[in-house]
Every structure is written in C-alpha cells, then in structure tokens.
C-alpha cells in the first residue's frame, strides 16, 4: 500500500490536466463560433467602406468609428429622411420598454386575480388566458393585421405594441411565482389587517422585485427583437424600429455602387447592443427568469 500511494497523484493529475485542456479547447472554439461574426461586424465599422468592399472584414482596426457612428445615427436611409438611426433607436426603445411594461403590468394583475382570489369563473378565465400560449402571433398574422387596420392602429405605437402583448407568457411566469410564495404570507397579512389592494402593493410587488426584473429583461429583449409584426404594422419610415429597418439596410447595400458597409454594420451593431448589454449585465436575473419558466 505505502509503495503505491506516492505514484498515484502525478498520474491522476496528468490525465486530469489533459481532459481539462480538451474542455477548454471545445469551449473556446464554441465561443469563437458565436463571437467572431460579431467581431467582424465591429471591425468593418472601423474601416473605410472601400476597404471593406475590396477585402471584406480583416484584422486592422481603422479610424472610421466616429464617422460611421455619426452617419448611422443621423443619416436617413429612406425617401422621407425620417428614419435616422436616432429615430429608429427611439422607436426600438419605445417598443422594448412599452412591450415589457405592458406585459408585466397586465401579467401581474391577471396572475394576482387568478392565484389569490376565490373566483367563480376562475377556471374559465384560466383557460381563456392560457390557450394563448399555444398559438404564436405568426400563425394569425394576417387577420391581426386586418384588425389593427380596422381599429386604425397602423403606424401607431399602440398598434405596434398592444397586439404583441396578446399572449399570456408573463401571466404564466407570475402565476407560477405567486404559487411558490408560502400561503402563510397572505394569511399573516390578512391577520395584520391588509386587504387585497394593500397586500398587493405592500407585500406582493416588493416581494416580486427579482421576478419583475428578470421578466423585464426577457420581455425587453423579446420586444426589441420583434420583426414580422413591426414589418407589417409600420409602413411610415419614422415608425421603423432598428430591427425593422434591417431589411431596408440590405436593400441599400444592394442598390448602390459603393455600399455603405460602415454605416449599415454600425446600425446593425446598434440594434444588437442594447439587448446584449442588458442580458450580459443582468445575467443572473435573466438566467433565473428564463430557466424557471419550464418548471
């Protein structure tokens, strides 16, 4: 026994090291696969367009970042001259934030009603609400468009945001969350003399802070990244969001003799960055909110 033991540690160490190297190699390759395209886009925003047109993305970091940024933010693509990057950024913000807030407010209210009240038609309301989880907007896109048209909602922020809210994802999250809160809490609150409104404001909302934050991140990203619905419902260029404007960018690149890759790619970056930064910065909340959805 005593003869064998001294030999073992180095052996174990060596094999451990080897597999660790493998693990890291795979992870680094995976990270490169995901990140290199983004880095290439970033690179082309720093070089002159002629350089990009000749050689494509390279390694050199150029000095055009400022110029391209200014062009992306303040130069318009279309005929109206309305859809500058600035304008689209604002529209994207309105869509992302409006969508997230709308989802959270409606979802919390409905979930509160379903979980904490004795309601005669609760089962019916439950099914009415949760059936919406079954069918994505894409399969009812045309009639939705017609209804938005009938209601005069084309090219309005209401028309952009509200139809997207018509699904119960947030309600579902909040319902799950509320159900996980110990029952004794509402009982203690009732003995402490808190009515339904007080309980909601004093206890439930502060208690749900993390959940609300996670929900906000997920919904903001989801809203920001919407494409099909904004494409249909907004035709005025001053209503375009960044993501909606992407197609126009590709058409711009096709049509001209010297395509403005610097500006176009900068706009793409501006469309990517806000949601990415939120997701990265609030990673732990976001992951928690996302992965708890399947429980």
């Amino acid at each position, binding site marked *: 026994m005593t003869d064998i033991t001294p030999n073992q540690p180095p052996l174990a160490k060596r094999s451990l090291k080897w*597999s*660790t190297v493998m693990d*890291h190699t*795979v992870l680094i390759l*995976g*990270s490169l*696969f*995901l990140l290199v*395209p*983004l880095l290439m*886009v970033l690179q*082309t925003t720093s070089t002159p367009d002629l350089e*990009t047109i000749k050689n*494509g*993305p390279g390694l050199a970091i150029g000095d055009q970042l400022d110029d391209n940024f200014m062009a992306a933010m303040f130069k318009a693509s279309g005929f109206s001259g309305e859809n500058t990057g600035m304008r689209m950024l604002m529209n994207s913000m309105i869509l992302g934030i409006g969508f997230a807030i709308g989802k959270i407010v*409606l979802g919390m*209210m*409905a979930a509160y*009603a*379903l979980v*904490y*009240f*004795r*309601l005669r038609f609760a089962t019916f*309301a439950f099914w009415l*609400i949760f059936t919406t989880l079954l*069918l*994505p907007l*894409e*399969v*009812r*896109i*045309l*009639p*939705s*468009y*017609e*209804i938005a048209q009938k*209601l005069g909602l084309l090219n309005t922020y209401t028309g952009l945001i509200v*139809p997207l809210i*018509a699904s*119960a994802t947030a309600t579902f999250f909040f319902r799950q969350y509320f159900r996980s809160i110990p*029952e004794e809490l509402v*009982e203690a609150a009732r003995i402490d003399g808190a*009515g339904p409104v007080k*309980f909601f404001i004093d206890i439930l909302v502060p208690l749900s802070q993390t959940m609300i934050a996670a929900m906000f991140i997920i919904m903001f*990203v989801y809203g920001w*990244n919407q*494409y*099909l619905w904004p494409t249909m419902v907004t035709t005025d260029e001053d209503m375009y969001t960044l*993501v909606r404007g*992407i197609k126009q960018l*590709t*058409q711009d*690149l096709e049509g001209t003799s010297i395509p403005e890759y610097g500006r176009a790619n900068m706009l793409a970056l501006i469309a990517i960055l806000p949601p990415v930064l939120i997701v*990265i910065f609030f*990673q732990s909340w976001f*992951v928690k909110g*996302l992965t708890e959805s*399947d429980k």
Partner: protein
Amino acid sequence: MKRAGFTTRWLPILLLLPQLAVIIVFFYWPAAQAVQSSFYLEDPFGFGSTFVGLDNYTYLAQSAEYAKIARFTLVFTILVTFFSLGLALLLAVKADKVIRGAKSYRTLLMWVYAVAPPVAGFIGLLMFNQSWGPLTELAKSFGWDFALGVNSTDTAAAMVLVSVWKQVPVNFIFFLSGLQSIPKSVREAALIDCSSAMRRFWDVTFPLLAPTGFFLLIINITYALFDTFGIVDVLVKGEPGNNPLTLVYKVYVDGFRGNDMGGSSAQSVVLMVLVLALTVVQFRLVERRIHYT
C-alpha cells in the same frame, strides 16, 4: 388558488379585464377570423368574398409547391433542432466540467441570445458575401463555390447555419442550468459506481437532463418553424424567387404580397393544427417530467 383567498368580488374581475380585453381583441378575434376566411375566396381587389368550403385546403393538399415547401421546412427544422441542441449540449457539458471559468464562458456564449433573427440574417449576408465573405472564402478553399441566393442548396445551408448560430445560446443556458441542478450527491454516487466518464454521462447525467432536453426540443421546433422568419426574410433579401422558403414565410408571401387571403388563412390553420399537436406532445412530456422530480 391559495387556501385563504380574498373574497372580494369586483377586484379580481377588474384585475383580469385588461388582459382579457387584449387577448380577445388580438388573439381570439384574429384566430377566429383566420379559421373563417380559410373557407372563403377573397377577391384580390377587395370586392367581397365567396364561400368556397374546403377548396382552399384541397388546393393546398394538391399543390406541388406547397408540398415542396413543407418538405423543406421539415428538413430545415430537423437540421436546425439537431445541430443547435447537439452543439449546445456539448458546450454545456464542457462548461459544467471546468471548475474555473464556467461563468466567463457562459457570459461569452450568451451574447448571441439577444441578437434579433433578422440581424442574424444580416450578419449571415455579410459572412456569405459573394465577393469577399469570410465563409464564402472558406467554402472556396474546400472547393465549394458557395453562391448565396443563387444556388438554393447553398441558400438553405446558410439558413441552417445562421439559425443554429442564433439558437445555440438559449439551449446552452438551459442545458447548463439543468446540469447544475443535478444534485451533487447523485454525481458523487455515480463517481463511486462507475469509473468511465463517458458511461457516467450516458447512464446518469443524460437521463437526468432528459426533461430539459424534451422541453428544449419543443422550443427548438417552434423556433425553427416560426422565429426563423426574420433570418429567412433577410437571407433571401425579401425575394422568394427560387429560394427555399419555410411554411410561415409562405403564409406571409401569399397573404401579404399575393393578396390570397383565403389560401394564406388555410395555411395559417394548418400551422395552428401543427402547433397544437406539438403542444399536446409537450404536455404529455411535461407529465412525464413530473415523475422525475
């Protein structure tokens, strides 16, 4: 409902009202309308419509073009689901194994989650640019003359690649958190029972991860069917032409561009049935999940 629910009558109704209103106007109404107009033939110039019964459906069933698109969608969905799940699982298992740096890798691998599908398509266009795209060059060095938008196989390959690229992070996040929620004691028990890391993975880790996998499978199929719209639209540059299309894209093209409301609605209804079937499968699987926990 909680044991000691509040008994106030009007408040819950007031709380439910906004949600119900939005759902009824923008979910049930359009869904019902889709079903209804799938039985009508609408005049392309907007002069009324005629009831045609199941004509729109029989037309779809006989359409060779529709069959082709359905077949492509099936292949596309299988490829996207398989590769994005497989790659994400590999990365998650590795990230779970490295003790130091797991969080940094998670951060690096998460970026793309927040990229919108059409923006992903835009980046795809860049990568596959005919004259200097890095991936076109790469393909060329293997003797593959890649021509996005010209050769339909090449276009399809680009669609799959971009869709996988966009979907890996979500799957990775779920797989990693699934792996991390496997109790340490179970891993230690496996470590004592079995010396081969490979066997441990297939005998213990993989079955315990199966619930997450089932859930993701459905998510990925839905993603490939619907959420890839933006990728497809940008990669084909809004020109269907001879390019491969997915079913959702066809709904959009026929209804919005071709003004064939009836045909497009019938396609919508077919998709609805498809999604409902998927959901039933999902619920079945959810029931099975419970039995693990």
